[in-house]
């Protein structure tokens, strides 16, 4: 089984020096791209490879790049790698950042060349201290070796690279909020359109890609689109870093072909559930994906199949729910996270998620009320995509709505039966006090 992203990562996780990395075949793609290929060539091989962004949304990378204006009058364009990894349950980029910094830098150089960006940033989460050191060192090495700076390898292509470490907050991972943050502003997302590809960092065309996405690029350029496509067991190309956390025997992170089943991941790699515990469900790709349950265990882990099963592949890092852990507590913990991390810009998210958290907390404390589930339902209905300003709140609703679907009894359990029957459901009993405003 090929594991292009992790094959040269040492057992002890110490990153390779530039020399070692070169010896292992590193920076080939930079030579190949800058010397023998046009930006257009690279864009088309990436497009043909069918690579989907690994940041969560699974947007086709080649397509995203194709929106960048390529006329030569634009003096500055930016490439940014999103290394803000902060989605609960997600710990995949950490490995690539800490143990393979040169692979990322290589991917960034080739990608920057592909869109003709001249300035690049690594937007790194503050907590990744070790990664910061390794990347800082690797960037310096790359400058010294002439892979960064002016006239890289005599190709005439220039690229600056800077490391920016963040100062907290999950929303910085949302690509437009990330841009605001890099501009030295509050990390509030921006409305799209205009898309960052047209008006991004400092108003200039900008591409933001996930760490894992960009780490795929050197391999695609070296070995071709077909090769990349064939790494996968299904139509969604490539390998993927898959992780499992929760009460399994051997939680961990593995590079595996796209399309392995949840069951394989859970049982073969994560060693199955801890003794005495049963699998109840899992968030397949981080905190903002829908629960999948037992019946889905044979679903293939790729963007299309997981979506067909009613969830999202997200970041590919699965959080497992066992039968001894409270579902309501589980969801309450997630809602606490999302409420804390809301940027505070738009109403439904800012006010709605804390309300949900309060309801769940009061359910857990045995103070549930008849209309509580109805209130949770309306939140899942109205904090969906498009209704809020960015995807944070819709993401937050995914575990909630699926928990309400698959584990509704667990919620009802907290509401005394008499109340359930008396004050439920709410809208029918609610009267409109004022109907005609024109009288007012």
């Amino acid at each position, binding site marked *: 089984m090929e594991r292009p992203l992790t094959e040269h990562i040492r057992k002890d996780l110490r990153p390779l020096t530039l020399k070692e990395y070169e010896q292992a075949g590193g920076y080939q793609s930079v030579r190949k791209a800058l010397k023998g290929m046009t930006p257009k060539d690279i864009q088309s091989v990436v497009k043909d490879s069918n690579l989907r962004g690994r940041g969560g949304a699974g947007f086709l990378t080649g397509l995203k790049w194709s929106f960048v204006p390529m006329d030569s009058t634009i003096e500055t364009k930016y490439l940014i790698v999103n290394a803000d990894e902060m989605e609960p349950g997600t710990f995949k980029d950490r490995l690539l950042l800490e143990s393979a910094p040169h692979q990322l830098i290589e991917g960034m150089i080739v990608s920057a060349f592909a869109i003709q960006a001249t300035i690049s940033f690594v937007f790194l989460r503050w907590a990744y201290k070790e990664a910061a050191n390794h990347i800082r060192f690797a960037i310096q090495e790359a400058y010294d070796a002439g892979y960064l700076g002016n006239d890289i390898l005599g190709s005439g292509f220039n690229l600056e690279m800077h490391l920016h470490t963040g100062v907290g907050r999950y929303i910085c991972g949302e690509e437009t909020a990330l841009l605001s943050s890099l501009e030295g502003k509050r990390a509030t997302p921006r409305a799209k359109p205009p898309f960052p590809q*047209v008006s991004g960092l400092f108003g200039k065309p900008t591409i933001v890609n996930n760490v894992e996405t960009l780490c795929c690029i050197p391999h695609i350029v070296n070995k071709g689109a077909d090769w990349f496509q064939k790494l996968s067991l299904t139509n969604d190309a490539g390998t993927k870093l898959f992780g499992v956390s929760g009460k399994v025997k051997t939680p961990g992170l593995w590079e595996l072909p796209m399309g392995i089943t949840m069951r394989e991941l859970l049982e073969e790699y994560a060693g199955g559930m801890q003794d005495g515990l049963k699998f109840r469900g899992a968030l397949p790709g981080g905190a903002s994906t829908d629960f999948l349950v037992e019946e889905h265990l044979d679903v293939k882990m790729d963007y299309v199949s997981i979506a067909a099963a009613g969830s999202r592949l997200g970041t590919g890092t699965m959080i497992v729910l066992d039968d001894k852990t409270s579902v309501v507590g589980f969801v309450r913990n997630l809602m606490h996270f999302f409420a804390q991390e809301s940027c505070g810009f738009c109403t439904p998210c800012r*006010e709605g998620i804390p309300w949900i958290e309060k309801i769940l907390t009061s359910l857990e404390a045995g103070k549930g009320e008849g209309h509580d589930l109805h209130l949770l339902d309306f939140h899942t209905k109205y904090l969906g995509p498009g209704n809020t300003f960015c995807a944070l709140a819709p993401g937050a609703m995914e575990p909630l709505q699926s928990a309400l679907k698959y584990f509704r009894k667990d919620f009802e359990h907290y509401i005394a039966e008499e109340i359930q029957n008396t004050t439920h459901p709410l809208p029918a009993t609610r009267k409109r006090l004022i109907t005609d405003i024109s009288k007012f």
Partner: protein
Amino acid sequence: MVLFIDNKPHEVPAGKNLLEACLTLGKDIPYFCWHPAMGSVGACRQCAVKVYKDENDQKGRLVMSCMEPVVNNQRISIEDHDAKEFREHVIEWLMTNHPHDCAVCDEGGSCHLQDMTVMSGHNYRNYNYKKRTYTNQYLGPFLNHEMNRCIQCYRCVRFYKDYAGGKDLDVFASKNNVYFGRAEDGILENEFSGNLAEVCPTGVFTDKTLKQHYTRKWDLTMAPSICQHCSVGCNTIAGERYGSLRMIANRYNGDVNGYFLCDRGRYGYEFVNAADRIRKPRIQQRETDREALLSNLSGLLNKPGVIGIGSPRASLQSNFVLKTLVGEHNFYHGVSDSEHDLAELAVKILREGTVRTPSTKEVEEADAVFILGEDITNTAPILALAVRQSVRQQPAALAEKANIPLWNDAAVKGVVQDKKGPLFIATLTTTKLDELATATYRATPECIARLGFAVAHALDNAAPAVADLSENLLVLAEQIAQALRTAKKPVIISGAGCESDAVMKAAANVAHALQKENKNTGLVYTMLECNSIGLAMMGGHRLHAAFNAVVNGHADTVIVLENDLYRHGRKSDVDAFLKACRNIIVLDHSMHATTQQAHVVIPAGTFAESDGILVNNEGRAQRFFQVYESKDMVRESWRWLLDIGTEAGNTRLSTWKNFEDITHAIATSEPLLQGIDQVTPPSQFRVAGQRIPRAPHRYSGRTSMQANINVSEPKPPEDPDSPLSYTMEGYRGMPPSSMIPFFWSPGWNSVQSVNKYQQEIGGALKGGDPGIRLLEPATTGTIKYFEGIPEAFKALEDHLLIMPMHHIFGSEELSARSPSVAQRIPKPYILLSMDDAVSMSLLENYILRFYIGRYEYSLPVKVSNAIPNGVAAVPYGLPEIPYTELPEWATTRAPKYLHTLTPTYTPKHQNT
């Protein structure tokens, strides 16, 4: 374009967003974060509607109407179940933390949040948990802060920071804990802070002066008024209850002030309520009644030797009646000779020249601005607000190129970043607009004029060239000329603030040179007072001539109309003049140095108690209406003068009975003021046979409010001068645009009901924006380029050229009397250059003693890096400051005749 709303087709203009389009059609969609002047950001999510792909799409998707451009043949639904339910929930979310304290909230009854809550149908609370609470801040004399009411629409920061350029208000923290305020308690510094009370859709920021005599807005008697505190003439709504003026609010006028007022205009009104207002006539300090007064006066006036002195802060009507009373030859403009000449010069240039003077709105749309000599933030604040918007015009092209509609505020800011269009400012010292300027030039009026002349010459060789211009200035002149030449709508701004005709002429030359190539050039002159231009357009002589007339014995009786002569003449001249007058008759509403010396004092109405027309600096004649019938013996000046004239047997005056007769007479006898009788409909005007009510239909307490005096309800006063009634009775619909006493529409109790009064959102009022422009340029140019370029300024040893410096608070007479504004008046100072301070061994706050003529002054020093050497500036209009003597040379070395000196203002602290 066609837009299907709930399956009905509507014609809508292109380029709008769905929310604007729907509101323009008269539809009701609730919203918060969107503001017509500031565009959309999509934060509140209140304005959701459904959009359908095509007529077969049954499901549709929710969109925020403020963020969605109108597309031809688009199908949307406002009434859709999901859209309605979502909007209701948005309110419900906002309400989870809102305190529901409407009963004790100043905003109650005119609250956009209340309106939107009712509109959305949310009326049942499902949220059972604790609300978050905040502590509030002290924000100075103008605004209250009650953060618990905040619904986080972000409008306040977007207005204060982004629109008005304020620095000391921002949003802090995040998630459901965001806080809008200052870094710490303190006075909000921006000149436009008061607008927060209107921009905030609920009661977080409310008018602090209103709170001191609080009245629900539905309980106010209101009239359309005009701000009296600078020459821009912003349209206001003035509200009264129990005989005192309670509030000034914005009255939308798309051409003049749009949605905003400055703090001088909003808070300057309290002089009306001053305890020491003149309320009864006085003869020789003794109160008297009407009959005694009139008979006394008719005795005086029937003798020869009566002159009248008018006023730039009195209405055309009052000035004109005075002029008629004393006769054309005996009527003097009550302004300093420099003010008189500069105003006449402005009128001449704007009438006889070929360049049009733009409205404030047009200044906002200018894509290159050159300001000569005028610190407009302090002399014409709303104009400065317009200039702030103008620098966004050129960079907006970037947005258009990227296909971003201009209403998409955050996105436009994203592409534009910190790019600004051309703005050049040449003033004596730093101004607040400098932060936006492409280049600034600090110089005396002479040198500013030279720069202007040089720019004109750079634009057109036929304009006179400036001799011995420094290399730097040549480059700057070239740069400015280039920027103006390439602009589509360049505007040149100058004014009377630096008291230099050379500067105003230089500005005219620049504008004329531009106009040759670009017909869209604009030229703005700002003046010192609200009716400076109106007065200049009415014939009259200089003030000095009045002084001479009396001192030389040609006259001995003077009628002074709403004027403190000490604000316009040199102190020594006014002293001598008043001393020489045998009879001094003053009509005014407030006590001042001139009233104190009057033999006869007549209680005049303030703007709130009067009808009148003012002409603003654009030459726009605008009417203000009496808000309430004056109490005691207070009357409009023109009404007193009519009575006095009638009593004295003046045949012309005795034929005029009311406001309209006078206005008609002005229109027929003053050639430059033709047409002013068309400013508002005549007093006989009725809609459906009814008057237009000054009070909202919910006005309460009318039958009982005077019950402590008399249990029978008195007959309401009748207005002989206008079609407005003093009560809530009358026509309920929309009045003509020039007579809107308040904005209200069913379901829209807040100021935001103005949407319903506009032809299209953010556009002109239905029926056109009020006011009539009297100054249009000559169609065939007659003005030749001005010559007479001044010599460059040279500093003199041991001398300082003292210049007046204008302040938004303190420089204008009436607003300075308002207690809230008084708190913001600067302490007296003299501003010196660093070099001059060093050479005189002075530090900040040290006292500089200087001498003008026979007078000695000492003022605390302020040091500036920007003011040129050899010049100093002192605040205009402060009682301690000799501003009427200025500009003038002062010596800093005590003159030999020291024993004759008269010390004036001496501050307490002395140099250590």
